[in-house]
C-alpha cells in the first residue's frame, strides 16, 4: 500500500508538467484551432527565465580581501554579488536563494509578451492555411527558438537550485498514519504539484467564472456567431494565446530544480504532451489535465523494478503504447468532444 502511494506521488511532478503543457496546447487548439509545435519551446523559455534571473542576481564584482590568502599565498579574491552589496547580505542572499520562485514574476510578462508577438506576428496568418502548414511553421519556429537559447546559454544543462528552505525531503508517510521512513518525498516536487494545481484551478476558474472567460468559451463553441454579436473575439483569443504561453512558461520556471534546464527539454516534453492531448481528447481541457496526471503516474508505475524486470524497457514506451491503444479504441480520446478534428 505504501509503495503504491509512493509511486503515485512519484508520478505527480512529471504529470503536473505534462498537464500544464497539455492544458496550454489545448487552450490554443480549442480557441484558435492551431496545432502549436512550438509550445515545448515556450516551456523551455520559461525554464530559462529562471536561469536568466539567477544569472542576473548572481552578477558579482571582485574585491581583494587582504586579510586572507588562498592556498598559493596570494591575497584572496572575493566575489560579491551586486544585490548583496546593495541590499545587504541577508536580503540580497535571500533574493538569490529564492531566484526560482521569483522568476515567476519575470516569466509572466515575458511569456505573455512572447505569446502576443507569436500570435500576432506569425500564427495569425495561418488560420486559413491547412493544419500541415501550421505544424510545419511552428515546427520551424521551435527549431529557431531552441537554437537561439542554445546560442546564448550553451548546450549543457544549467543547474537552477531551489530555495534552501525547500530543499531536502519530508516524510509524508508519518503524516497520514504510515510507519516512519516509508514514504519520503522531496519537498520541491510537492511544491511543484501544488503550484500546478493552483495554475490549473486558476485557468479553469478564469474560464468558468469571469465574463471574459464566458465570452472565450462561447467563442470556442461558435466563433462566428460571437463575432457577429459585435464582440472582438480575435483580440480575446490573442489574450488566451498569451495566457497559454504563460502557463507553459510557468510550468518551465518551476521545473528547473527538478531537472536542470537544457535547450532541448522543450522538445522532449512536447512530443509527450502531444500524446497527452491526444489521449485526453483534442480540445478538451479537463481531458488534457486528467490525461497528463494519468500518464505521469502510469510512467512512474512502469519505472518500478518489478515492471522493468517483467517487461524490460516498459518505462520508456508505456506512454506511447497507451496512446496507441487509446487512439485505436477511443479515437476521440478519453474526453474528446464530438466534431473536434474529425474527418
Amino acid at each position, binding site marked *: 500500500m505504501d509503495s503504491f502511494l509512493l509511486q503515485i506521488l512519484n508520478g505527480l511532478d512529471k504529470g503536473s508538467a505534462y498537464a500544464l503543457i497539455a492544458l496550454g496546447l489545448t487552450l490554443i487548439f480549442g480557441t484558435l484551432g492551431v496545432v502549436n509545435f512550438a509550445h515545448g519551446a515556450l516551456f523551455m523559455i520559461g525554464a530559462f527565465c529562471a536561469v536568466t534571473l539567477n544569472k542576473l542576481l548572481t552578477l558579482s564584482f571582485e574585491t581583494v580581501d587582504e586579510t586572507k590568502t588562498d592556498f598559493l599565498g596570494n591575497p584572496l579574491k572575493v566575489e560579491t554579488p551586486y544585490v548583496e552589496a546593495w541590499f545587504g547580505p541577508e536580503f540580497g542572499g535571500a533574493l538569490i536563494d529564492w531566484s526560482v520562485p521569483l522568476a515567476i514574476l519575470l516569466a509572466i510578462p515575458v511569456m505573455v509578451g512572447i505569446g502576443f508577438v507569436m500570435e500576432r506576428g506569425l500564427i495569425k496568418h495561418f488560420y486559413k492555411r491547412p493544419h500541415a502548414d501550421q505544424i510545419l511553421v511552428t515546427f520551424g519556429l521551435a527549431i529557431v527558438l531552441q537554437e*537561439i537559447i542554445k546560442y546564448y546559454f550553451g548546450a549543457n544543462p544549467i543547474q537552477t537550485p531551489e530555495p534552501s528552505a525547500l530543499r531536502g525531503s519530508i516524510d509524508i508517510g508519518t503524516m497520514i498514519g504510515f510507519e516512519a521512513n516509508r514514504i519520503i518525498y522531496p519537498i520541491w516536487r510537492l511544491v511543484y504539484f501544488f503550484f500546478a494545481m493552483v495554475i490549473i484551478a486558476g485557468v479553469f476558474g478564469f474560464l468558468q467564472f469571469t465574463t471574459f472567460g464566458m465570452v472565450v468559451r462561447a467563442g470556442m463553441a461558435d466563433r462566428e456567431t460571437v463575432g457577429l454579436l459585435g464582440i472582438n473575439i480575435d483580440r480575446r483569443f490573442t489574450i488566451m494565446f498569451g495566457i497559454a504561453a504563460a502557463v507553459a512558461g510557468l510550468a518551465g520556471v518551476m521545473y528547473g530544480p527538478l531537472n536542470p534546464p537544457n535547450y532541448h527539454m522543450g522538445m522532449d516534453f512536447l512530443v509527450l504532451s502531444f500524446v497527452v492531448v491526444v489521449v485526453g481528447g483534442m480540445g478538451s481541457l479537463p481531458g488534457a489535465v486528467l490525461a497528463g496526471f494519468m500518464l505521469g503516474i502510469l510512467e512512474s508505475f512502469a519505472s518500478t523494478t518489478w515492471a522493468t524486470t517483467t517487461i524490460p524497457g516498459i518505462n520508456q514506451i508505456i506512454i506511447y503504447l497507451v496512446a496507441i491503444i487509446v487512439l485505436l479504441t477511443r479515437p476521440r480520446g478519453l474526453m474528446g468532444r464530438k466534431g473536434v*478534428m474529425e*474527418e
Partner: protein
Amino acid sequence: MLGLNRKDTTLLIVVFLLTMLAPFLLNPFPADSAMAQFNAGYPDLMQRFVIFGIFAVGFNILFGLTGYLSFGHAAFLGVGSYAAVWMFKLFTFNVVPAIAAAVVVAGLFSVLIGYVSLRRSGIYFSILTLAFAQMSFALAYSVLSNPKFNLTNGETGLQVYADDPQIFAVAGSPNLPHLFGLSMRSTYTMDVGAWSFDFNAGYYLCAVIMLVVFYLSVRLFRSPFGMMLRAIKSNQQRLNYTGLNSRPYTLAAFVISGMYAGLAGGLLAAMDPLAGAERMQWTASGEVVLMTILGGAGTLIGPVLGAGFIKYFENIFSKINDNVLHSWFAFLPDGMEDFMVTIIHPFVGKGWHLTLGLLFMLVVIFLPGGLVEGGQRIARLFKRNTTQTPGNDPEHHPKPSPHVAE
C-alpha cells in the same frame, strides 16, 4: 522512352546527367584556391546528396501525393541501417544482401506502423507516427541494448567487430562494405590542371540506385495508382462516398515510402558500416519533411533538390568560422568588419540549425510550393505575354488543394 512522356524523359535524362557528372559539377573551383571550401565534390558529401535524395523522394510519395504528413519517417531509415549492419555482422560485407535486407525489414516495419497509424488522418496521423518513431528511438537507444539481448548496441551504435561470424565472407575480399570485391571506399582521383575530381565507387552505386528509384517514382506519379493517391489528397471523403476504400492505397503509399527510407538507411550503412539510434530521432524525421517542403512537395524533382540544397548548405555553413568571416569582410573598415562578423556569427558554424529553422519558416510562409514553385514563378515572369494554356482553367481542372487529408 521507358514508358514516359517527353517531359518526364527529359527530366530523367537531366537527373541522369547531373548525378553521373556530379564529381565534375560539384568541384567547379581549383583544389587549392580560396573558393575550394565551396566545393562539394568529395565522396562523403556526394553520397549524402543522393542517399537523402532517395529518402526525400520516398517521403514525397506519401506526403506529396496523399497529403499524409508523417513525422516519424526516420524510424524506417534507422531500421534499414540496423538491418544492413546486422547483415554485415552475420553474413558478409557484400552490400547486396545488406541493402535488400534493409528494404525488406523497413517495408515490414512500415506495414506494421502504417496499419495502425493510417486508421487516423490529419493531425492524429502526424502525432501517431511521431509517437511510433519516438518509441522506436527509445527502444533502440536503451531497451534493446541490454546485455541479454543486444540488438542495437545502444549509445555506441551498432558496428561490425572482428569477432563477428560473417559466415559467407569470401576470403580475400575487402574488410569493408564492398560490391563483389569492389570496395565502397575505393576512389579514383583525376587531376586536371589545378582541379581534382574524385570518382568514388560508393557514390556511383548510390547514384545508380537513386536513378532507378527516381524512375520508379516518376512512373508511380504518372500511374493510375498515383492518380488515386492524388484523389485521396484532394478529397478523401468524396472518394469514400464513391464506394472506394482508400485505406489500401494509403497503406501501399506508406509502405512504399517506408521502403525508400529503408533503402536510404541501408545505403548509409553500406557507405559507413555503422548504425546509431540518433538516426531515428524525431529531428531526423523533421529534416526529411524539411527537404521535401523546401524542394516542393508533390513535385518530382523537388525533394531531390531540397535534399541536395540542405545537405550542401549544412556542409558549407558548418565550415564557416570567425576567421573565414573576417577574411570575407576584410575590405570593410575595422569597426564595420567586427560588426558584420558579430551579426553573421550566430547563423554559421554551429548555428547552422538556426539558419535552417529560419529558412524553413520563410519557405512555409512565403513559398509553400518550395524551390520548384519559386522557379516556376520566375519562369512565369519571363513568359508573361504568352497565352494561358487551357489546362489552367480552374473550372475544369481544379487544382489539388495542399490539404492534409482531414
